[in-house]
């Protein structure tokens, strides 16, 4: 499941940034060699104009083809999201025909990611793609990169450092927005009335915070009918999602809906609901975030009501952005990608896009 711990810090500023982003333009879909839809930049975003140019950033121009590129992955590839992400980067690198792509994995440890990046710089990589473990604290690594004159592109999690000096730009989803959209979907599913239990992701981690904040703020603002009766952590894990749900269903029998911060916990909830002799998707509405095959299949089977996508296929977009950067184009601070939503109506045909 999408256990990408920690996510971009203050989504609100992102949403602010969204406005002043320039013209329409979208990455050509399908460029990703691995199956499923590649990312498209959200309408009215990712455009040039007042973005970051290579001169402003102040690094040597580089021919990506044949270059030595490094990718610092944040979490073990056993998470579907991470597997898809790494795979997408690797294959896109091939497409572009880089000379060598070095991939390190920080196993969720910030210190290790810092050393990973330093080690890669030591090996003379010329361009860095980083999926940060955490929004804060990468400073030593980024400084080292700056010293070595190697530009850094951060994906899927925004760092709090200075854009266009510490890193070129941020490619990724808006997790706060995902939360809000989850709230909309929940409203849809429940018809505006319901007692909702939230399965939180791992504590002390920005994805959890943003997906929760987005959801709750939205409910607060627009859906008075939805009452949040419980928030317990399921650590992004299926079995924990299951056990916690089992307990919650006992202590609050009147729960009618569950919002899970990721698909795995959502699927756990499904099992739990069944075990309790209830019908998931019917008696208990379930909404989760990610868009893994299992979850989307769950929608098709009518056990899950909606899944907000969090698209992991950064490869093509990342290398396009890099190319544009070296072509002298200006890259906006935040290239927020368009995340789709899977629901009863579209799950069937989009099943292929799930990862």
């Amino acid at each position, binding site marked *: *499941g999408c256990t990408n711990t920690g996510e971009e810090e203050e989504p609100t500023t992102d949403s602010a940034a969204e406005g002043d982003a320039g013209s329409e333009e979208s990455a050509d879909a399908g460029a990703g060699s691995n199956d499923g839809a590649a990312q498209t930049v959200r309408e009215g975003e990712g455009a040039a104009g007042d973005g970051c140019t290579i001169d402003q950033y102040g690094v040597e121009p580089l021919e990506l083809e044949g270059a030595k590129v490094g990718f610092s992955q944040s979490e*073990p*590839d*056993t*998470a*579907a999201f991470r*597997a898809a992400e790494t795979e997408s980067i690797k294959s896109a690198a091939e497409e572009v025909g880089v000379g060598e792509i070095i991939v390190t994995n920080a196993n969720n440890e910030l210190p290790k990611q810092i050393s990973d990046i330093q080690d890669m710089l030591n090996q003379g990589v010329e361009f860095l793609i980083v999926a940060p473990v955490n929004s804060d604290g990468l400073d030593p690594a980024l400084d080292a990169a700056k010293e070595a004159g190697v530009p850094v592109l951060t994906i899927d999690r925004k760092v709090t450092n200075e854009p266009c000096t510490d890193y070129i730009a941020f490619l990724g989803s808006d997790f706060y927005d995902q939360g809000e959209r989850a709230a909309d979907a929940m409203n849809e599913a429940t018809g505006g009335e319901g007692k909702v239990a939230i399965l*939180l992701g791992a*504590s002390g981690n920005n994805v959890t915070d943003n997906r929760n904040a987005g959801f709750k703020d939205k409910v607060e603002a627009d859906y008075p009918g939805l009452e949040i*009766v*419980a*928030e*317990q*952590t399921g*650590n*992004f*894990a*299926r*079995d*924990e999602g*299951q*056990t*916690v749900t*089992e*307990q*919650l269903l*006992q*202590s609050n*029998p009147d729960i009618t809906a569950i919002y899970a911060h990721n698909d*795995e916990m959502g*699927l*756990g909830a499904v*099992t739990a609901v069944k*075990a*309790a002799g209830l019908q998931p998707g019917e008696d208990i509405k379930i909404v989760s975030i990610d868009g893994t095959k*299992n979850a989307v299949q769950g929608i098709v089977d009518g056990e899950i009501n909606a899944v907000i996508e969090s698209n992991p296929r950064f490869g093509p977009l990342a290398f396009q952005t890099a190319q544009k950067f070296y072509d002298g184009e200006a890259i906006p601070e935040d290239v927020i990608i368009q995340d789709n939503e899977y629901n009863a109506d579209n799950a069937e045909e989009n099943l292929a896009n799930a990862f």
Partner: protein
Amino acid sequence: MSSTTATAERTRTRIDLDWVRRNGVYVALVALLLFNVVATNNFLSERTLMLQLIQVTPVVIVALGMALVIGTEGIDLSVGAVMALAAAVIPLYIGYGAPLAILAALTAGLLCGALAGSIIGFVGVQPIVATLGIMVAGRGVANLLGGEIKSIREPGFVALGTGEFLGVPYVVLIAIAISLAVWFVARRTIYGRQLVAIGGNPRAALLAGLPVRRVIITTYVVCGLLAAVAGVLMAARSQASDPTKLGLLMELSAITAVVIGGTPLSGGQVRIVGTIAGALLLQLITATLIFHNIPDSTAQMAQAVIVIAAVYVQLGRRKGSS
């Protein structure tokens, strides 16, 4: 532990401590039960109670194995990884039907145990390091075999997780059966007697001609096997195999259960019933915190305090060992 170590306090409060030591964990357990009866709505429902039993089974099974290992003055950090490994094996063989898949999973656990046992028994590596190495490597192998989480739909296997007999879920029945078996082995068999002797004074046991190595190795094999069983049951319950997350931190829960149950980490004793009670106590603590929707930060601190309190009641003032 020898009489010469007794200090003033310890000897003074010997009698009452004995009583408490025998009953402490149960006292705590009853107290928490009562609290829930009063404070938790719908707690006394048959399903809620059964749910606690269902959810505690993996911990109980692993803790029993751990109790034996600790009895030999050892420790096994690899149980969590072994659970994951066992679960990871299942999807590979589920094609040949549930029984064979389960057999394969158990074999995996058995092999891990044998490896740990040999490294400790033959080479004489300290258990905590040996099993630490296996824990790290084992998790890695599990991920290599299993890759990302896989749902398992094989009906036979699913039935193992969901099925019931006379209203009692299979998983619970299995746990009960295992508990009885382990109790019998620990109390009534030569192996059980030799085990505590070895834990109590390895050197003396050796000079008394006990098969120290064989007992050590057997014990780790049993522990690995039980961990595998727990892994299988958890996989069956969640109808999925999740090598990355399954059994994370299980080693710590199991050890805690054993110690709360009154078994000193210094070996030489095995308390089966206490261990089970310890596991139930842990289960009830987590459940209570969920029932009352306690935020994670508070929950973790509360757990810390309760565990200390419980163990203090158990072992307080008689010098436990590291």
